[in-house]
């Protein structure tokens, strides 16, 4: 420690050292504190909820992609189709037998070693002389039907025609071009098919659909019917489902953390003589810590299943919280309140404190809030009989009305002042969800929860810190799924 005269002199002199800072210093200080406060507001007010929403949407998109990838494996793609042969596209095989066969009609069939069935594409004439390089459509020409001849020639079936095969299931819309790879050692097949408009009712019956099958190796015994078109499974579009909910429970304002609590205490009355000695002006008063009160809420929400185990819910809500304190009687008289919470406030009425051991009345501090929240639910148990989900949510609520009282230690009165309250409250909530009813028209689930607001109830940090704590049970009613 400095014990010498020199240090003392230096210290005394330096107390007098003052300078006037330049104007830019204050300008910069003011700018920076506004920026930092704005950043804090943005962070807590918007960024965190946006991050949660963004995370949920990203997860949802990832789920969608996974779903598409799984479905896509079954879809026929260009790669699964036979490669174009000599530039001629190969249509996929068509289902069903679109051939119509009239067993009574004499049909000239050219014998072939090929034992495949063929389908007819009516109104199409294909000349075997046409090279496979030519587009299929170039082959399609309308020719007059030779009445003497059957309109077409079909390959001789190697097996008896069944009843199903006789039926034309659907008109042929695709024609498989003749390809050199199909050609066998035998005489190329000639297929002449009557144009549709030239086909009369009777000739329709006599028509046998004979369309060369998809280009295949003659050794293969695969038939057209074996090649069923692969239909991509319809992707179910995930939709939002809507519902409403109610909740009831108990709320309180606690100092400290979620399990902290305000302590009730006695406060001595002022002394008659403040300079020492003197007597108390009255008995000590009991400063009551708030006790829990009833809470309830009404919610409307939209919910979406992001995956079988995860769902997202956005809620619009109204919440009512209350706490109870003990006060003395109400006095309708004006007073000037000036403390760390209220600055020079003139009040027209107040409540006195309850004297220790004296009569007291119960006063309910009521808080009305409206806000929004985002909930993410993880389905922990998904069995047929029992489902359980763990839900966590963040929300922003606005305190739009309250009749809560503050206590002024100077005047020893309880009074109302809305201004010191922090109007925008940020909430965390955690709980579980149990489905109770899983009907067609309505689904009901039970939601026990705990809710906590980390922000101070009052704007003024010099005052006592207190936070909303709310716990209870909610019922959610999910409306029928939209189709």
């Amino acid at each position, binding site marked *: *420690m*400095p*014990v*010498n*005269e*020199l*240090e*003392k*002199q*230096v*210290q*005394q*002199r*330096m*107390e*007098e*050292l*003052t*300078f*006037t*800072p*330049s104007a*830019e*210093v*204050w300008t*910069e*200080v*003011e700018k*920076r*504190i506004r920026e*930092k*406060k704005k950043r804090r507001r943005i962070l807590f007010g918007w960024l965190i909820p946006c991050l949660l929403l963004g995370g949920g949407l990203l997860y949802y998109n990832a789920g969608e992609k996974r779903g598409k990838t799984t479905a896509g494996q079954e879809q026929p793609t260009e790669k699964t189709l036979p490669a174009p042969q000599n530039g001629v596209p190969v249509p996929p095989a068509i289902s069903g037998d679109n051939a119509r066969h009239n067993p009574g009609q004499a049909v000239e069939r050219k014998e072939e070693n090929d034992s495949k069935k063929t389908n007819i594409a009516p109104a199409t004439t294909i000349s075997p002389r046409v090279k496979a390089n030519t587009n299929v459509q170039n082959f399609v020409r309308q020719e007059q039907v030779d009445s003497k001849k059957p309109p077409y020639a079909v390959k001789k079936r190697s097996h008896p025609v069944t009843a199903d095969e006789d039926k034309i299931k659907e008109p042929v819309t695709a024609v498989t071009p003749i390809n050199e790879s199909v050609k066998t050692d035998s005489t190329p097949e000639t297929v002449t098919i009557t144009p549709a408009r030239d086909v009369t009712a009777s000739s329709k019956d006599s028509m046998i659909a004979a369309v060369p099958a998809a280009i295949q190796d003659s050794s293969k015994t695969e038939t057209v019917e074996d090649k069923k078109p692969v239909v991509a499974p319809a992707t179910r579009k995930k939709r939002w489902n809507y519902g409403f909910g109610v909740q009831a429970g108990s709320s309180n304002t606690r100092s400290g953390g979620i399990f902290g609590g305000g302590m009730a205490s006695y406060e001595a009355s002022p002394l008659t003589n403040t300079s020492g000695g003197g007597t108390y002006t009255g008995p000590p008063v009991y400063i009551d810590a708030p006790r829990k009160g009833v809470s309830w809420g009404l919610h409307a929400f939209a919910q979406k299943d992001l995956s079988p185990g995860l769902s997202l819910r956005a809620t619009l809500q109204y919440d009512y919280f209350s706490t109870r304190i003990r006060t003395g009687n109400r006095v309708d008289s004006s007073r000037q309140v000036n403390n*760390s919470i209220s*600055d020079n406030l003139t009040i027209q009425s107040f409540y006195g404190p309850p004297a220790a051991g004296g009569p007291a009345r119960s006063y309910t501090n009521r808080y009305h809030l409206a806000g929004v929240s985002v909930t993410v639910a993880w389905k922990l148990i998904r069995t047929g009989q029992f489902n359980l989900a763990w839900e966590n949510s963040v929300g922003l609520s606005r305190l739009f009305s309250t009749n809560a009282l503050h206590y002024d230690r100077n005047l020893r009165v309880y009074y109302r002042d809305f201004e010191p309250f922090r109007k925008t409250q940020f909430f965390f909530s955690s709980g579980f969800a149990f489905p109770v009813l899983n009907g067609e028209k309505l689904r009901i689930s039970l939601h026990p929860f705990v809710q906590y607001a980390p922000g101070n109830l009052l*704007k*003024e*940090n*010099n005052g006592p810190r207190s936070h909303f704590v709310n716990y209870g049970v909610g019922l959610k009613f999910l409306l029928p799924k939209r189709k």
Partner: protein
Amino acid sequence: MGGALNPKTFFVSRRCNEREWPVVSFAVNITDRQLVKGCLRGKPEAQRQLYEQFAPSMLGICYRYTKSMRDAEDVLQEGFVKVFLHLNQYKEQGELGAWIRRIMVNTALNYLKRHRQYRSEMVFTEQPLHPVAAENPEITLEVKELADLIRQLPPGYQTIFNLHAIEGFSHVEIGAMLGISDGTSRSQYARARALLVNWLEKISTNKKTASYAGQ
């Protein structure tokens, strides 16, 4: 000086000449309290008032720790930003000025550690203990001249002299703040003091010589 000069009590008791004027710690100036309240509510006029009330003396503190007025204003600016952003932590257990002063000193130390021009010279090497000079030369300099003389010391000496001789921190506390041993702090302080005494004596001698010459 009589009595222990503990940084915790430094801002509670103020010494003037040889008489102690204890400041009652709980008697926070009502004006200060209202000022703090207004600042916490974000009232611009309260913030401006608080700044104007304390900025001149705080700039003096920053000036003592730095080598230029520009650096001193930088420290002042950073310090007041911290004051306004952390004002909710002021618990009215001491004077507001003392609380702001503590923030300003810490801001100055951080500034010295961060900026290259100071950081390279803030090297405290273990040196043999230097006996504290017993001389107490009379200070004939003006306030600003004395401050400029202190600022002539090397940055390491300057910092330790400011912290011990003016702010009243013990060498153990200085060691903790600067990351050095208390022995190094003592030795550095002794050397700084010796240098300052030497300069003051020379200045005093020169002034006497000049006055004799003038005669």
